[in-house]
């Protein structure tokens, strides 16, 4: 008696050869593919004039100078809450889209989907459609197979390099970095970034494909939790399609109307699926709602002279209605519901608040740090001097003259001096923060009690903007 062989703990990936398809959703996907890729590749090359002191790249993440430029907006590190706001908006936007359109992000806009789509297109261009690909897969390594595979991988690699290459242009001046990159003068981190992104694009887009969605990506599981009975999902209408069976050219009246549904079990929906699922089994993790099976099925239904939409976008609530013979609600009734209004309101509210604060924010700033060691210094003439480190912030795109002044709360008089500067006016360079050492000195031999509150003011002499900071003066008496 031998024990039954242990079942395998590991499974090889089932190769998927999605068939080319045409139709309304395929056209939409092409449009989105072209648009998203165009945004990705073209954005770093857009120019935006910000004057002589600032970079003229429209979108630039300048890590060295710690600035983020986005067209007319410039974000400093201390304004990072704008980035947090954008992330929150992206999160709520995902809730919104998911509650209305289901996994629309997965199906249309996710980079993994877009690049895999592109790679599959290349694959069909070189190796032919599904059947030819399957044949080639099972073929031995003939010169033809080697030639086709080499060509395919070469084009994939070129696309991958372009993908990785475009990424780095977001972090430096694109034209000069491109020239440096070609001449070998670019920083090593640029080459390393391109190499890593080339490798990941090549592997994830060319070979791992749906494995990324099934095993690596957290979105499908998070999005599944955000769907409700009103969210649109790709649905096989089994109440119309079942029982499925082979199509008969001249059906007898009984078989046509009584026992056979619209599904002729042609497997067109399975053959076009990029993740290799059978949508007729119902909602499942593998379905990214790319809607290509809808196009494929519509094509078959048109040939059979049956109405389209055996597989279609449909919400769970509509499924129940249709199953019981009632008409589905209009799409607007599904979209206009409290949850959608709530998400839209939150999303728009945050966006509006950010835009308002962005355009009302100060372009001048002042922070003051009183010297802690020592708190004060006695000078030989009997006066008391306090030292301060002052940071002046100039967020304008031009150098600005700033004038410092102070106001003492209470009696007495203090003299203000800026170290290394004769007057009280300093020029702060464009778009920088400048550190100054400033002294306040009391009059000789006049004792001041303990701490005295002092307010330091800075004024931009051109724009007349003012900012202040409250600190103290230590008078020296114990």
């Amino acid at each position, binding site marked *: 008696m031998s024990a039954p062989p242990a079942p*395998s703990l590991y*499974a*090889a990936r089932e190769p998927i050869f999605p068939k080319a398809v045409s139709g309304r959703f395929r056209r939409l996907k092409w449009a989105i593919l072209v648009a998203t890729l165009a945004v990705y590749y073209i954005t770093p090359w857009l120019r935006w004039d910000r004057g002589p002191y600032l970079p003229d790249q429209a979108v630039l993440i300048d890590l060295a100078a710690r600035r983020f430029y986005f067209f007319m907006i410039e974000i400093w590190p201390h304004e990072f809450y704008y980035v947090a706001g954008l992330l929150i908006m992206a999160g709520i936007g995902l809730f919104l889209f998911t509650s209305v359109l289901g996994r629309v992000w997965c199906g249309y806009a996710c980079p993994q989907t877009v690049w895999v789509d592109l790679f599959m297109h290349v694959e069909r261009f070189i190796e032919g459609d599904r059947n030819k690909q399957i044949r080639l897969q099972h073929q031995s390594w003939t010169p033809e197979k080697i030639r086709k595979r080499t060509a395919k991988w070469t084009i994939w690699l070129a696309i991958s390099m372009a993908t990785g290459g475009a990424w780095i242009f977001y972090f430096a001046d694109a034209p000069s970095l491109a020239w440096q990159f070609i001449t070998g003068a670019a920083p090593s981190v640029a080459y390393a970034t391109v190499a890593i992104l080339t490798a990941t694009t090549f592997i994830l887009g060319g070979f791992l494909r749906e494995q990324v969605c099934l095993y690596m990506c957290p979105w499908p599981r998070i999005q599944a939790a955000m769907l409700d009975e009103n969210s649109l999902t790709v649905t096989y209408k089994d109440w119309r399609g079942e029982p499925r069976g082979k199509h008969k050219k001249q059906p007898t009246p009984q078989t046509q109307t009584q026992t056979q549904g619209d599904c002729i079990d042609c497997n067109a929906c399975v053959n076009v699926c990029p993740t290799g699922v059978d949508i007729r089994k119902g909602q499942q993790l593998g379905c990214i709602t790319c809607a290509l099976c809808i196009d494929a099925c519509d094509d078959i239904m048109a040939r059979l002279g049956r109405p389209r939409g055996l597989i279609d976008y449909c919400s769970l609530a509509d499924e129940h209605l249709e199953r019981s013979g009632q008409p589905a609600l209009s799409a607007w009734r599904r979209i206009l519901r409290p949850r959608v209004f709530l998400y839209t309101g939150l999303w728009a509210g945050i966006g509006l608040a950010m835009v308002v604060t962005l355009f009302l924010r100060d372009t001048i700033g002042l922070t003051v740090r009183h010297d802690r060691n*020592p708190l004060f*210094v006695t000078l*030989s003439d009997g006066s008391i001097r306090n030292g301060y480190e002052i940071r002046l912030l100039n967020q304008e795109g031009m150098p600005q003259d700033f004038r410092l002044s102070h106001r003492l709360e209470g009696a007495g008089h203090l003299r203000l001096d800026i170290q*290394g500067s004769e007057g009280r006016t300093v020029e702060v360079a464009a778009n920088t923060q400048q550190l100054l050492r400033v002294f306040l000195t009391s009059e000789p031999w006049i004792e001041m009690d303990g701490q005295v509150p002092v307010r330091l003011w800075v004024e931009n002499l051109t724009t007349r903007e003012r900012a202040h900071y409250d600190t103290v003066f230590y008078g020296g008496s114990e």
Partner: protein
Amino acid sequence: MSKDKDDRAVDPHTGTKTTGHDWDGITELDTPLPRWWLWTFYATIVWGLLYTVAYPAWPMLSGATSGLLGYSSRGALEQDIARQKAAQAGIEAEIVKAGFGEIAADANLASYAYAGGAAVFRANCSQCHGAGAAGSKGYPNLRDDDWLWGGTPEDIYLTIAHGIRWEADYDTRWSEMPAFGDDGILEETEIALVADHVLSLSGKSGRSEAGATLYLDNCSGCHGEAGEGMAEMGAPALNDAIWLYGSDRASLIETITHSRFGVMPSWNTRLSEADLRKVAHYVHSLGGGVRE
């Protein structure tokens, strides 16, 4: 019927075989892992093993294997320091060559000298003068505008390089106030009169003829008739608000009776020329430095 040796139960909803584990009716699906995942796992093991060969890892009887790449954190630090030093060589040479006025006028040199000087100060000077350079009794405050031996950058540089009363250095700054009481130069009552006169110089006490005469005879040679001091001798001004050993009568009597003999080491044997100049620039920039 063919003999199916894989007799695991099948989950009706997913069509996946189950492990046979059952918790209150919930069964565990026996989904196989993707094979690429297994390869990735093996690859990380191979990577880990190669890593321990390339880098210090395996504990031995004394120490650990050193690794084929010869990496050590200390070596990396040394390389890093050497690289930084090489990168700084140019500006260090400029610091040595430039006058203090030129250093202060050049923003790049000035900020380099200030930052470097601050580091030198923290490591070598702060023990006596305090981290904030505010000094304490017997150790001068370097932020005020009173300088025993002069407050120009050149004066400060000389003081740091050669020290004060530092016998090992021939060029050290030297002066010595007599111990008027210990050496029997003045009587106790006379010392008290002198102390009162010194207090009167900064308005802290009334004037007396006897005290004034004693002061003129014994003290004014170095400290000046009005108590204005003399930086060439390191003689402190006595008519201002700054007192290294205290300004009360008892402290003054103690000073006159026993004298003080503050010592500061010379630093030219321990610090490089560039470091000396950087820390001189730093001390001068603290707020009390006298302009050239």
